[in-house]
Protein backbone atom coordinates (compact mmCIF):
# COMPACT_ATOMS: atom_id res chain seq x y z
CA UNK A 1 0.00 0.00 0.00
CA UNK A 2 2.70 2.50 1.01
CA UNK A 3 4.64 1.65 -2.12
CA UNK A 4 1.56 2.26 -4.28
CA UNK A 5 0.86 5.65 -2.71
CA UNK A 6 4.49 6.67 -3.21
CA UNK A 7 4.36 5.60 -6.85
CA UNK A 8 1.19 7.58 -7.45
CA UNK A 9 2.67 10.69 -5.86
CA UNK A 10 5.77 10.36 -8.03
CA UNK A 11 3.57 10.17 -11.14
CA UNK A 12 1.58 13.20 -10.01
CA UNK A 13 4.63 15.46 -9.67
CA UNK A 14 5.45 15.80 -13.40
CA UNK A 15 1.74 16.39 -14.09
CA UNK A 16 1.76 19.18 -11.53
CA UNK A 17 4.88 20.75 -13.00
CA UNK A 18 3.32 20.52 -16.45
CA UNK A 19 0.22 22.32 -15.19
CA UNK A 20 2.28 25.18 -13.76
CA UNK A 21 4.14 25.49 -17.09
CA UNK A 22 0.86 25.64 -19.03
CA UNK A 23 -0.47 28.24 -16.59
CA UNK A 24 2.59 30.37 -16.85
CA UNK A 25 2.67 30.24 -20.64
CA UNK A 26 -1.00 31.23 -20.94
CA UNK A 27 -0.48 34.10 -18.59
CA UNK A 28 2.65 35.36 -20.28
CA UNK A 29 0.87 35.37 -23.64
CA UNK A 30 -1.61 37.79 -22.10
CA UNK A 31 0.87 40.59 -21.74
CA UNK A 32 1.97 42.68 -18.82
CA UNK A 33 -0.35 43.20 -15.88
CA UNK A 34 1.03 46.72 -15.71
CA UNK A 35 -0.73 47.58 -18.96
CA UNK A 36 -3.82 48.20 -16.86
CA UNK A 37 -1.97 50.83 -14.86
CA UNK A 38 -1.01 52.83 -17.92
CA UNK A 39 -2.63 56.23 -18.28
CA UNK A 40 -1.87 59.89 -18.65
CA UNK A 41 -1.04 60.24 -14.97
CA UNK A 42 1.50 57.41 -14.82
CA UNK A 43 4.87 58.12 -16.38
CA UNK A 44 6.77 55.57 -18.47
CA UNK A 45 9.64 55.69 -16.05
CA UNK A 46 7.41 54.78 -13.14
CA UNK A 47 6.07 51.76 -15.01
CA UNK A 48 9.60 50.68 -15.89
CA UNK A 49 10.69 50.96 -12.28
CA UNK A 50 7.68 48.91 -11.24
CA UNK A 51 8.47 46.32 -13.90
CA UNK A 52 11.99 45.87 -12.55
CA UNK A 53 10.73 45.71 -8.99
CA UNK A 54 8.30 42.90 -9.92
CA UNK A 55 10.89 41.10 -12.06
CA UNK A 56 8.73 41.45 -15.17
CA UNK A 57 11.66 42.69 -17.29
CA UNK A 58 13.33 39.28 -17.26
CA UNK A 59 12.64 36.61 -19.89
CA UNK A 60 9.60 34.40 -19.34
CA UNK A 61 11.43 31.22 -18.42
CA UNK A 62 13.60 33.07 -15.89
CA UNK A 63 10.43 34.45 -14.30
CA UNK A 64 8.99 30.95 -14.20
CA UNK A 65 12.03 29.50 -12.46
CA UNK A 66 12.11 32.38 -10.00
CA UNK A 67 8.44 31.73 -9.22
CA UNK A 68 9.12 28.00 -8.84
CA UNK A 69 12.09 28.65 -6.55
CA UNK A 70 10.00 30.93 -4.37
CA UNK A 71 7.26 28.33 -4.31
CA UNK A 72 9.62 25.67 -3.02
CA UNK A 73 10.48 28.03 -0.20
CA UNK A 74 6.79 28.18 0.63
CA UNK A 75 6.31 31.64 -0.85
CA UNK A 76 3.54 31.85 -3.46
CA UNK A 77 4.29 35.47 -4.31
CA UNK A 78 2.46 38.70 -3.60
CA UNK A 79 -0.73 40.03 -5.07
CA UNK A 80 -0.04 42.83 -7.55
CA UNK A 81 -3.19 44.63 -6.44
CA UNK A 82 -3.25 44.45 -2.67
CA UNK A 83 0.41 43.46 -2.02
CA UNK A 84 -0.74 40.78 0.39
CA UNK A 85 1.02 37.40 0.24
CA UNK A 86 -0.95 35.04 -2.02
CA UNK A 87 -0.90 32.31 0.59
CA UNK A 88 -2.57 34.67 3.10
CA UNK A 89 -5.19 35.64 0.55
CA UNK A 90 -5.97 32.02 -0.23
CA UNK A 91 -5.92 31.12 3.46
CA UNK A 92 -8.47 33.77 4.32
CA UNK A 93 -10.84 32.79 1.49
CA UNK A 94 -10.62 29.01 1.51
CA UNK A 95 -12.78 28.46 4.60
CA UNK A 96 -16.10 29.61 3.11
CA UNK A 97 -15.38 27.70 -0.12
CA UNK A 98 -14.62 24.45 1.70
CA UNK A 99 -17.76 24.88 3.78
CA UNK A 100 -19.88 25.45 0.68
CA UNK A 101 -18.26 22.60 -1.26
CA UNK A 102 -18.46 20.14 1.61
CA UNK A 103 -22.11 20.80 2.39
CA UNK A 104 -23.05 20.68 -1.31
CA UNK A 105 -21.22 17.39 -1.81
CA UNK A 106 -22.97 15.82 1.18
CA UNK A 107 -26.33 17.20 0.06
CA UNK A 108 -25.86 15.86 -3.46
CA UNK A 109 -24.97 12.42 -2.12
CA UNK A 110 -27.98 12.40 0.20
CA UNK A 111 -30.06 13.14 -2.87
CA UNK A 112 -28.30 10.94 -5.41
CA UNK A 113 -27.51 7.73 -3.53
CA UNK A 114 -31.04 6.77 -2.46
CA UNK A 115 -32.50 8.02 -5.75
CA UNK A 116 -29.98 6.06 -7.84
CA UNK A 117 -30.48 2.86 -5.85
CA UNK A 118 -34.26 3.20 -5.86
CA UNK A 119 -34.20 3.79 -9.58
CA UNK A 120 -32.05 0.73 -10.22
CA UNK A 121 -34.14 -1.58 -8.04
CA UNK A 122 -37.35 -0.45 -9.70
CA UNK A 123 -35.92 -0.36 -13.21
CA UNK A 124 -38.42 0.65 -15.94
CA UNK A 125 -41.07 1.58 -13.37
CA UNK A 126 -42.78 4.97 -13.39
CA UNK A 127 -40.65 6.04 -10.44
CA UNK A 128 -37.50 5.10 -12.33
CA UNK A 129 -38.51 7.17 -15.35
CA UNK A 130 -39.31 10.13 -13.14
CA UNK A 131 -35.97 9.92 -11.34
CA UNK A 132 -33.98 9.57 -14.57
CA UNK A 133 -35.85 12.43 -16.26
CA UNK A 134 -35.27 14.65 -13.23
CA UNK A 135 -31.61 13.73 -13.21
CA UNK A 136 -31.32 14.81 -16.85
CA UNK A 137 -32.98 18.05 -15.89
CA UNK A 138 -30.43 18.47 -13.10
CA UNK A 139 -27.47 18.16 -15.42
CA UNK A 140 -29.07 20.33 -18.13
CA UNK A 141 -30.11 23.41 -16.18
CA UNK A 142 -27.26 25.93 -16.10
CA UNK A 143 -26.30 26.67 -12.50
CA UNK A 144 -26.52 30.41 -12.98
CA UNK A 145 -30.05 30.21 -14.40
CA UNK A 146 -31.21 28.04 -11.51
CA UNK A 147 -29.62 30.57 -9.15
CA UNK A 148 -31.54 33.40 -10.79
CA UNK A 149 -34.78 31.45 -10.54
CA UNK A 150 -34.19 30.67 -6.86
CA UNK A 151 -33.29 34.28 -6.08
CA UNK A 152 -36.40 35.40 -7.93
CA UNK A 153 -38.65 33.01 -6.03
CA UNK A 154 -37.16 32.92 -2.52
CA UNK A 155 -35.67 36.39 -2.22
CA UNK A 156 -37.73 38.65 -4.45
CA UNK A 157 -41.17 37.04 -4.27
CA UNK A 158 -41.25 35.32 -0.90
CA UNK A 159 -38.49 37.22 0.88
CA UNK A 160 -37.47 34.11 2.83
CA UNK A 161 -33.79 33.84 2.06
CA UNK A 162 -30.96 36.35 1.70
CA UNK A 163 -29.39 36.32 -1.76
CA UNK A 164 -25.87 37.49 -1.14
CA UNK A 165 -22.96 37.21 1.24
CA UNK A 166 -22.31 34.75 4.01
CA UNK A 167 -23.65 36.66 7.00
CA UNK A 168 -26.07 39.53 7.43
CA UNK A 169 -24.21 42.81 7.69
CA UNK A 170 -24.14 44.21 11.18
CA UNK A 171 -26.01 41.27 12.69
CA UNK A 172 -24.33 38.49 14.60
CA UNK A 173 -26.64 35.66 13.73
CA UNK A 174 -24.08 32.89 14.17
CA UNK A 175 -24.48 29.47 12.58
CA UNK A 176 -28.18 29.89 11.81
CA UNK A 177 -27.48 33.04 9.84
CA UNK A 178 -24.73 31.38 7.79
CA UNK A 179 -26.95 28.37 7.17
CA UNK A 180 -29.69 30.66 5.86
CA UNK A 181 -27.26 32.25 3.43
CA UNK A 182 -26.06 28.84 2.32
CA UNK A 183 -29.39 27.31 1.38
CA UNK A 184 -29.61 28.59 -2.19
CA UNK A 185 -25.98 28.09 -3.32
CA UNK A 186 -26.05 24.60 -1.85
CA UNK A 187 -29.30 23.74 -3.64
CA UNK A 188 -27.85 24.88 -6.96
CA UNK A 189 -24.56 23.02 -6.61
CA UNK A 190 -26.14 19.87 -5.18
CA UNK A 191 -28.88 19.76 -7.82
CA UNK A 192 -26.50 19.95 -10.75
CA UNK A 193 -24.11 17.39 -9.23
CA UNK A 194 -26.89 15.01 -8.26
CA UNK A 195 -28.04 14.99 -11.90
CA UNK A 196 -25.07 13.10 -13.26
CA UNK A 197 -24.49 11.16 -10.04
CA UNK A 198 -27.94 9.59 -10.04
CA UNK A 199 -27.47 8.10 -13.51
CA UNK A 200 -23.99 6.90 -12.66
CA UNK A 201 -25.08 5.19 -9.44
CA UNK A 202 -28.16 3.77 -11.14
CA UNK A 203 -26.21 2.05 -13.90
CA UNK A 204 -23.60 0.80 -11.42
CA UNK A 205 -26.24 -0.70 -9.13
CA UNK A 206 -28.03 -2.23 -12.14
CA UNK A 207 -24.81 -4.01 -12.98
CA UNK A 208 -24.43 -5.26 -9.41
CA UNK A 209 -28.00 -6.54 -9.34
CA UNK A 210 -27.22 -8.90 -12.22
CA UNK A 211 -24.24 -10.51 -10.47
CA UNK A 212 -24.30 -14.15 -9.48
CA UNK A 213 -23.72 -13.48 -5.79
CA UNK A 214 -26.91 -11.47 -5.64
CA UNK A 215 -28.85 -14.27 -7.27
CA UNK A 216 -27.38 -16.60 -4.67
CA UNK A 217 -28.36 -14.27 -1.88
CA UNK A 218 -31.90 -14.08 -3.24
CA UNK A 219 -32.03 -17.85 -3.64
CA UNK A 220 -31.14 -18.26 0.02
CA UNK A 221 -34.43 -16.57 0.75
CA UNK A 222 -33.12 -13.94 3.15
CA UNK A 223 -35.65 -11.40 1.95
CA UNK A 224 -35.57 -8.55 -0.46
CA UNK A 225 -34.57 -5.90 2.06
CA UNK A 226 -31.57 -7.82 3.38
CA UNK A 227 -30.39 -8.68 -0.12
CA UNK A 228 -30.27 -5.04 -1.08
CA UNK A 229 -28.93 -3.65 2.18
CA UNK A 230 -26.31 -6.22 3.01
CA UNK A 231 -25.15 -7.56 -0.33
CA UNK A 232 -25.83 -4.90 -2.91
CA UNK A 233 -25.03 -1.73 -0.98
CA UNK A 234 -21.56 -2.76 0.12
CA UNK A 235 -20.67 -3.28 -3.51
CA UNK A 236 -22.37 -0.07 -4.53
CA UNK A 237 -19.82 1.77 -2.38
CA UNK A 238 -17.30 1.69 -5.22
CA UNK A 239 -19.36 3.65 -7.73
CA UNK A 240 -20.26 6.08 -4.96
CA UNK A 241 -16.58 6.66 -4.22
CA UNK A 242 -15.93 7.20 -7.93
CA UNK A 243 -18.69 9.78 -8.00
CA UNK A 244 -17.15 11.71 -5.11
CA UNK A 245 -13.76 11.63 -6.85
CA UNK A 246 -15.26 12.89 -10.10
CA UNK A 247 -17.09 15.73 -8.37
CA UNK A 248 -14.04 17.44 -6.89
CA UNK A 249 -12.89 19.30 -10.02
CA UNK A 250 -16.53 20.02 -10.92
CA UNK A 251 -17.11 21.49 -7.48
CA UNK A 252 -14.05 23.66 -7.69
CA UNK A 253 -15.13 25.06 -11.03
CA UNK A 254 -18.83 25.32 -10.28
CA UNK A 255 -18.10 27.18 -7.07
CA UNK A 256 -16.50 30.02 -9.06
CA UNK A 257 -19.74 30.91 -10.84
CA UNK A 258 -22.04 30.25 -7.90
CA UNK A 259 -19.88 32.27 -5.51
CA UNK A 260 -19.91 35.12 -7.99
CA UNK A 261 -23.71 35.14 -8.16
CA UNK A 262 -24.34 34.81 -4.44
CA UNK A 263 -21.33 36.99 -3.48
CA UNK A 264 -20.11 34.13 -1.32
CA UNK A 265 -16.80 35.38 0.09
CA UNK A 266 -14.74 32.39 -1.00
CA UNK A 267 -11.97 31.43 -3.38
CA UNK A 268 -14.23 31.72 -6.42
CA UNK A 269 -15.09 35.34 -5.78
CA UNK A 270 -11.44 36.09 -5.12
CA UNK A 271 -10.42 34.31 -8.33
CA UNK A 272 -12.94 36.20 -10.43
CA UNK A 273 -11.67 39.54 -9.17
CA UNK A 274 -8.07 38.38 -9.69
CA UNK A 275 -8.93 37.34 -13.26
CA UNK A 276 -10.58 40.64 -14.13
CA UNK A 277 -7.72 42.56 -12.48
CA UNK A 278 -5.06 40.39 -14.15
CA UNK A 279 -3.51 39.68 -10.79
CA UNK A 280 -1.23 36.90 -12.08
CA UNK A 281 0.40 35.72 -8.86
CA UNK A 282 -3.06 35.18 -7.32
CA UNK A 283 -4.37 33.36 -10.43
CA UNK A 284 -1.27 31.14 -10.47
CA UNK A 285 -1.75 30.36 -6.80
CA UNK A 286 -5.39 29.38 -7.25
CA UNK A 287 -4.63 27.26 -10.34
CA UNK A 288 -1.85 25.48 -8.49
CA UNK A 289 -4.01 24.90 -5.45
CA UNK A 290 -6.88 23.52 -7.50
CA UNK A 291 -4.58 21.22 -9.45
CA UNK A 292 -3.14 19.88 -6.19
CA UNK A 293 -6.63 19.36 -4.79
CA UNK A 294 -7.74 17.49 -7.91
CA UNK A 295 -4.65 15.27 -7.95
CA UNK A 296 -5.03 14.50 -4.23
CA UNK A 297 -8.70 13.76 -4.88
CA UNK A 298 -7.76 11.22 -7.56
CA UNK A 299 -5.23 9.60 -5.26
CA UNK A 300 -7.63 9.35 -2.34
CA UNK A 301 -10.26 7.86 -4.66
CA UNK A 302 -7.88 5.11 -5.71
CA UNK A 303 -6.91 4.35 -2.12
CA UNK A 304 -10.55 4.23 -0.99
CA UNK A 305 -11.23 1.78 -3.83
CA UNK A 306 -8.76 -0.61 -2.31
CA UNK A 307 -10.37 -0.27 1.10
CA UNK A 308 -13.91 -0.79 -0.21
CA UNK A 309 -13.06 -3.67 -2.51
CA UNK A 310 -10.39 -6.07 -1.29
CA UNK A 311 -10.25 -7.77 -4.69
CA UNK A 312 -8.70 -4.72 -6.37
CA UNK A 313 -4.97 -5.26 -6.67
CA UNK A 314 -2.84 -2.16 -6.44
CA UNK A 315 0.74 -1.95 -7.84
Amino acid sequence: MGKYILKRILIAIPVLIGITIIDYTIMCMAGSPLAMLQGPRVSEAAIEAKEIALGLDKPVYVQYFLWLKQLLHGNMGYSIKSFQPVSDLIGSHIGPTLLLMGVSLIASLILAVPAGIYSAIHQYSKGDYTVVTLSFLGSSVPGFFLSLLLIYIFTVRLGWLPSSGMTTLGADGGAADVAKHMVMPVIVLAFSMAGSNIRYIRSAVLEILQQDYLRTAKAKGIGHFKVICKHALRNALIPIITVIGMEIPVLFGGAVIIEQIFSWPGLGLMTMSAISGRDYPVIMGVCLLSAVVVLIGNLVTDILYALADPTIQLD
Partner: protein
Amino acid sequence: MKKNRIDEKNKKPPGTDLAGESYLHMVFRRFRRHHLAAVSLIVLGVIVCAALLSPVIAPYEPNEIAGPFAQAPSRDFWLGTDQIGRDMFSRLLYATRISLLVGVMATAISTVIGVLLGLVAGYFGGLADMIIMRFTDMVMSFPYILLVLVAAAIFRPGLWNIILILGFVDWPGIARLVRGNVLGLRETNFVKGSLVAGMPLRHILFSEILPNTVAPILVYATSVLALSILDEAALSFLGQGVQPPTASLGNMLNGAQSLTVLTKQPWLWLPPGLVIVCIVIAINFIGDALRDALDPNGGR
Protein backbone atom coordinates in the same frame (compact mmCIF):
# COMPACT_ATOMS: atom_id res chain seq x y z
CA MET B 1 -47.44 -2.74 -17.46
CA LYS B 2 -45.08 -5.61 -16.88
CA LYS B 3 -47.15 -8.06 -18.85
CA ASN B 4 -47.21 -5.81 -21.88
CA ARG B 5 -43.47 -5.65 -22.03
CA ILE B 6 -43.11 -9.39 -21.93
CA ASP B 7 -45.67 -9.74 -24.71
CA GLU B 8 -43.76 -7.28 -26.80
CA LYS B 9 -40.60 -9.22 -26.29
CA ASN B 10 -42.26 -12.47 -27.25
CA LYS B 11 -43.59 -11.01 -30.45
CA LYS B 12 -40.09 -10.30 -31.62
CA PRO B 13 -37.80 -13.09 -30.58
CA PRO B 14 -34.20 -11.86 -30.55
CA GLY B 15 -32.19 -12.88 -33.54
CA THR B 16 -34.91 -13.18 -36.12
CA ASP B 17 -35.44 -9.47 -36.59
CA LEU B 18 -31.76 -8.66 -36.43
CA ALA B 19 -30.88 -10.90 -39.35
CA GLY B 20 -33.28 -9.26 -41.75
CA GLU B 21 -32.62 -5.61 -41.06
CA SER B 22 -29.67 -3.34 -41.70
CA TYR B 23 -27.67 -1.78 -38.88
CA LEU B 24 -29.11 1.66 -39.54
CA HIS B 25 -32.62 0.25 -39.43
CA MET B 26 -31.96 -1.36 -36.10
CA VAL B 27 -30.48 1.84 -34.72
CA PHE B 28 -33.52 3.77 -35.89
CA ARG B 29 -35.95 1.25 -34.39
CA ARG B 30 -34.15 1.20 -31.06
CA PHE B 31 -33.91 4.99 -31.02
CA ARG B 32 -37.64 5.36 -31.57
CA ARG B 33 -38.35 3.32 -28.47
CA HIS B 34 -37.10 6.25 -26.39
CA HIS B 35 -40.14 8.49 -26.53
CA LEU B 36 -38.47 11.36 -24.72
CA ALA B 37 -35.59 11.28 -27.19
CA ALA B 38 -37.98 11.27 -30.14
CA VAL B 39 -39.79 14.28 -28.71
CA SER B 40 -36.41 15.92 -28.02
CA LEU B 41 -35.38 15.40 -31.61
CA ILE B 42 -38.48 17.24 -32.79
CA VAL B 43 -38.01 20.06 -30.26
CA LEU B 44 -34.35 20.43 -31.18
CA GLY B 45 -35.25 20.34 -34.86
CA VAL B 46 -37.74 23.18 -34.40
CA ILE B 47 -35.22 25.24 -32.41
CA VAL B 48 -32.43 24.65 -34.95
CA CYS B 49 -34.74 25.55 -37.87
CA ALA B 50 -35.91 28.70 -36.12
CA ALA B 51 -32.29 29.65 -35.43
CA LEU B 52 -31.20 28.99 -39.01
CA LEU B 53 -34.13 30.90 -40.44
CA SER B 54 -33.85 33.77 -37.98
CA PRO B 55 -33.30 36.43 -40.70
CA VAL B 56 -36.63 35.33 -42.21
CA ILE B 57 -38.62 34.84 -39.02
CA ALA B 58 -37.33 37.70 -36.90
CA PRO B 59 -39.74 40.67 -37.09
CA TYR B 60 -36.94 43.20 -36.41
CA GLU B 61 -33.18 43.49 -36.81
CA PRO B 62 -31.54 42.07 -33.63
CA ASN B 63 -29.54 45.23 -32.91
CA GLU B 64 -32.10 47.73 -34.12
CA ILE B 65 -33.81 49.97 -31.62
CA ALA B 66 -37.38 49.15 -32.54
CA GLY B 67 -39.63 50.36 -29.79
CA PRO B 68 -39.95 51.86 -26.31
CA PHE B 69 -37.52 50.88 -23.54
CA ALA B 70 -38.16 47.78 -21.44
CA GLN B 71 -41.70 47.20 -22.60
CA ALA B 72 -43.54 44.11 -21.41
CA PRO B 73 -44.56 41.51 -24.02
CA SER B 74 -47.26 42.84 -26.34
CA ARG B 75 -48.67 42.11 -29.78
CA ASP B 76 -45.97 44.16 -31.51
CA PHE B 77 -43.14 42.78 -29.39
CA TRP B 78 -43.88 39.14 -28.55
CA LEU B 79 -41.27 38.91 -25.84
CA GLY B 80 -41.11 42.60 -25.00
CA THR B 81 -38.17 44.91 -25.53
CA ASP B 82 -34.93 45.31 -23.61
CA GLN B 83 -33.55 48.34 -21.76
CA ILE B 84 -32.62 50.15 -24.96
CA GLY B 85 -35.69 49.14 -26.94
CA ARG B 86 -34.48 46.19 -29.00
CA ASP B 87 -37.00 43.46 -29.78
CA MET B 88 -36.37 40.49 -27.49
CA PHE B 89 -37.90 37.86 -29.78
CA SER B 90 -35.60 38.78 -32.66
CA ARG B 91 -32.61 38.88 -30.34
CA LEU B 92 -33.54 35.49 -28.90
CA LEU B 93 -33.57 33.94 -32.38
CA TYR B 94 -30.18 35.36 -33.29
CA ALA B 95 -28.79 34.46 -29.87
CA THR B 96 -29.85 30.84 -30.31
CA ARG B 97 -28.04 30.84 -33.64
CA ILE B 98 -24.82 32.11 -32.05
CA SER B 99 -25.03 29.70 -29.11
CA LEU B 100 -25.63 26.71 -31.39
CA LEU B 101 -22.76 27.83 -33.63
CA VAL B 102 -20.40 28.02 -30.63
CA GLY B 103 -21.51 24.60 -29.41
CA VAL B 104 -21.21 22.85 -32.76
CA MET B 105 -17.89 24.41 -33.74
CA ALA B 106 -16.31 23.81 -30.32
CA THR B 107 -17.49 20.21 -30.40
CA ALA B 108 -16.11 19.74 -33.92
CA ILE B 109 -12.71 21.11 -32.93
CA SER B 110 -12.43 19.07 -29.76
CA THR B 111 -13.60 15.91 -31.53
CA VAL B 112 -10.97 16.28 -34.25
CA ILE B 113 -8.20 16.93 -31.71
CA GLY B 114 -9.37 14.13 -29.44
CA VAL B 115 -9.70 11.58 -32.24
CA LEU B 116 -6.29 12.36 -33.71
CA LEU B 117 -4.48 12.28 -30.37
CA GLY B 118 -6.36 9.18 -29.28
CA LEU B 119 -5.55 7.34 -32.52
CA VAL B 120 -1.87 8.19 -32.31
CA ALA B 121 -1.60 7.32 -28.61
CA GLY B 122 -3.51 4.06 -28.93
CA TYR B 123 -1.97 2.81 -32.16
CA PHE B 124 1.67 3.70 -31.71
CA GLY B 125 1.89 3.29 -27.95
CA GLY B 126 5.26 3.77 -26.29
CA LEU B 127 6.66 7.25 -25.90
CA ALA B 128 3.95 8.96 -27.98
CA ASP B 129 1.29 7.32 -25.83
CA MET B 130 3.00 8.34 -22.62
CA ILE B 131 3.45 11.98 -23.62
CA ILE B 132 -0.08 12.34 -24.98
CA MET B 133 -1.70 10.67 -21.99
CA ARG B 134 0.29 12.73 -19.47
CA PHE B 135 -0.77 15.86 -21.36
CA THR B 136 -4.36 14.62 -21.24
CA ASP B 137 -4.04 14.13 -17.48
CA MET B 138 -2.83 17.70 -17.12
CA VAL B 139 -5.74 19.19 -19.03
CA MET B 140 -8.18 16.94 -17.17
CA SER B 141 -6.94 17.72 -13.68
CA PHE B 142 -7.47 21.38 -14.30
CA PRO B 143 -10.73 22.71 -12.95
CA TYR B 144 -12.35 23.16 -16.27
CA ILE B 145 -14.26 26.40 -15.79
CA LEU B 146 -11.24 28.00 -14.17
CA LEU B 147 -9.08 27.23 -17.22
CA VAL B 148 -11.76 28.52 -19.57
CA LEU B 149 -12.27 31.66 -17.50
CA VAL B 150 -8.57 32.44 -17.29
CA ALA B 151 -8.11 31.82 -21.00
CA ALA B 152 -11.18 33.87 -21.91
CA ALA B 153 -10.11 36.78 -19.75
CA ILE B 154 -6.65 36.74 -21.24
CA PHE B 155 -7.35 36.25 -24.96
CA ARG B 156 -9.80 39.10 -25.32
CA PRO B 157 -13.29 37.55 -25.21
CA GLY B 158 -15.06 37.24 -28.54
CA LEU B 159 -16.99 34.74 -30.61
CA TRP B 160 -14.11 32.91 -32.28
CA ASN B 161 -11.89 32.99 -29.24
CA ILE B 162 -14.63 31.35 -27.20
CA ILE B 163 -15.05 28.66 -29.83
CA LEU B 164 -11.31 27.98 -29.92
CA ILE B 165 -10.96 27.97 -26.12
CA LEU B 166 -13.87 25.57 -25.59
CA GLY B 167 -12.60 23.41 -28.46
CA PHE B 168 -9.11 23.16 -27.02
CA VAL B 169 -10.36 22.31 -23.55
CA ASP B 170 -12.98 19.66 -24.27
CA TRP B 171 -10.91 17.03 -26.07
CA PRO B 172 -9.34 14.90 -23.26
CA GLY B 173 -12.41 12.73 -22.76
CA ILE B 174 -12.61 11.88 -26.44
CA ALA B 175 -8.88 11.21 -26.65
CA ARG B 176 -9.11 8.73 -23.77
CA LEU B 177 -12.14 7.03 -25.26
CA VAL B 178 -10.56 6.65 -28.71
CA ARG B 179 -7.28 5.46 -27.26
CA GLY B 180 -9.05 2.75 -25.27
CA ASN B 181 -10.98 1.55 -28.31
CA VAL B 182 -7.91 1.58 -30.54
CA LEU B 183 -5.99 -0.50 -28.02
CA GLY B 184 -8.68 -3.17 -28.34
CA LEU B 185 -9.08 -2.90 -32.12
CA ARG B 186 -5.34 -3.11 -32.74
CA GLU B 187 -5.43 -6.72 -31.58
CA THR B 188 -8.37 -7.77 -33.77
CA ASN B 189 -7.82 -10.04 -36.74
CA PHE B 190 -9.08 -7.66 -39.41
CA VAL B 191 -6.55 -5.00 -38.40
CA LYS B 192 -3.75 -7.55 -38.17
CA GLY B 193 -4.85 -8.86 -41.58
CA SER B 194 -4.53 -5.41 -43.18
CA LEU B 195 -1.19 -5.00 -41.56
CA VAL B 196 0.05 -8.31 -43.00
CA ALA B 197 -1.42 -7.41 -46.39
CA GLY B 198 0.82 -4.34 -46.34
CA MET B 199 -1.92 -1.75 -46.32
CA PRO B 200 -0.69 1.83 -45.83
CA LEU B 201 -0.91 3.21 -42.31
CA ARG B 202 -3.40 5.87 -43.39
CA HIS B 203 -5.77 3.17 -44.58
CA ILE B 204 -5.48 1.15 -41.38
CA LEU B 205 -6.03 4.12 -39.11
CA PHE B 206 -8.80 5.90 -40.98
CA SER B 207 -10.56 3.15 -42.90
CA GLU B 208 -10.22 0.16 -40.57
CA ILE B 209 -9.93 1.44 -37.02
CA LEU B 210 -11.80 4.75 -37.04
CA PRO B 211 -15.11 3.51 -38.52
CA ASN B 212 -15.27 0.88 -35.79
CA THR B 213 -15.10 3.45 -33.04
CA VAL B 214 -17.45 6.05 -34.53
CA ALA B 215 -20.48 5.06 -32.43
CA PRO B 216 -18.96 5.79 -28.99
CA ILE B 217 -17.37 8.98 -30.35
CA LEU B 218 -20.78 10.15 -31.58
CA VAL B 219 -22.38 9.48 -28.21
CA TYR B 220 -19.58 11.25 -26.38
CA ALA B 221 -19.74 14.18 -28.80
CA THR B 222 -23.39 14.79 -27.90
CA SER B 223 -22.43 15.27 -24.27
CA VAL B 224 -19.57 17.57 -25.30
CA LEU B 225 -22.07 19.57 -27.36
CA ALA B 226 -24.36 19.95 -24.37
CA LEU B 227 -21.44 20.95 -22.17
CA SER B 228 -20.06 23.51 -24.64
CA ILE B 229 -23.43 25.21 -24.93
CA LEU B 230 -23.68 25.36 -21.13
CA ASP B 231 -20.13 26.69 -20.85
CA GLU B 232 -20.65 29.35 -23.49
CA ALA B 233 -23.75 30.45 -21.61
CA ALA B 234 -21.89 30.55 -18.29
CA LEU B 235 -18.95 32.49 -19.76
CA SER B 236 -21.14 34.99 -21.56
CA PHE B 237 -23.26 35.34 -18.43
CA LEU B 238 -20.12 36.34 -16.52
CA GLY B 239 -19.29 38.81 -19.29
CA GLN B 240 -16.25 36.83 -20.45
CA GLY B 241 -17.82 35.22 -23.50
CA VAL B 242 -19.59 36.49 -26.58
CA GLN B 243 -19.59 40.28 -26.32
CA PRO B 244 -22.56 42.58 -26.84
CA PRO B 245 -24.06 43.85 -29.08
CA THR B 246 -23.89 40.32 -30.57
CA ALA B 247 -26.60 38.43 -28.69
CA SER B 248 -25.93 35.00 -27.23
CA LEU B 249 -28.18 33.09 -24.85
CA GLY B 250 -25.67 33.63 -22.04
CA ASN B 251 -25.12 37.34 -22.42
CA MET B 252 -28.86 37.97 -22.68
CA LEU B 253 -29.06 36.60 -19.14
CA ASN B 254 -26.22 38.85 -18.06
CA GLY B 255 -28.65 41.73 -17.59
CA ALA B 256 -30.49 39.74 -14.92
CA GLN B 257 -27.61 40.42 -12.54
CA SER B 258 -29.15 43.84 -12.05
CA LEU B 259 -31.94 43.87 -9.51
CA THR B 260 -34.50 45.83 -11.55
CA VAL B 261 -34.27 43.38 -14.43
CA LEU B 262 -34.45 40.39 -12.11
CA THR B 263 -37.45 41.63 -10.16
CA LYS B 264 -39.45 43.75 -12.58
CA GLN B 265 -38.64 42.48 -16.08
CA PRO B 266 -38.71 38.68 -16.06
CA TRP B 267 -39.33 38.62 -19.85
CA LEU B 268 -35.73 39.74 -20.29
CA TRP B 269 -34.13 36.72 -18.63
CA LEU B 270 -36.66 33.88 -18.46
CA PRO B 271 -36.93 33.08 -22.20
CA PRO B 272 -33.18 32.81 -22.96
CA GLY B 273 -32.70 30.65 -19.86
CA LEU B 274 -35.56 28.36 -20.85
CA VAL B 275 -34.19 28.05 -24.39
CA ILE B 276 -30.80 26.95 -22.99
CA VAL B 277 -32.49 24.37 -20.78
CA CYS B 278 -34.57 23.06 -23.71
CA ILE B 279 -31.60 22.75 -26.04
CA VAL B 280 -29.32 21.10 -23.51
CA ILE B 281 -31.88 18.67 -22.15
CA ALA B 282 -32.92 17.69 -25.69
CA ILE B 283 -29.30 17.00 -26.63
CA ASN B 284 -28.81 14.96 -23.46
CA PHE B 285 -31.91 12.83 -24.09
CA ILE B 286 -30.88 12.24 -27.69
CA GLY B 287 -27.36 11.29 -26.60
CA ASP B 288 -28.75 8.84 -24.06
CA ALA B 289 -31.00 7.19 -26.64
CA LEU B 290 -28.14 7.07 -29.15
CA ARG B 291 -25.94 5.34 -26.58
CA ASP B 292 -28.60 2.71 -26.20
CA ALA B 293 -29.39 2.42 -29.91
CA LEU B 294 -25.81 2.24 -31.14
CA ASP B 295 -24.65 -0.28 -28.55
CA PRO B 296 -23.75 -3.43 -30.51
CA ASN B 297 -24.26 -5.58 -27.40
CA GLY B 298 -27.60 -4.01 -26.57
CA GLY B 299 -29.74 -6.87 -27.88
CA ARG B 300 -33.43 -6.47 -28.67
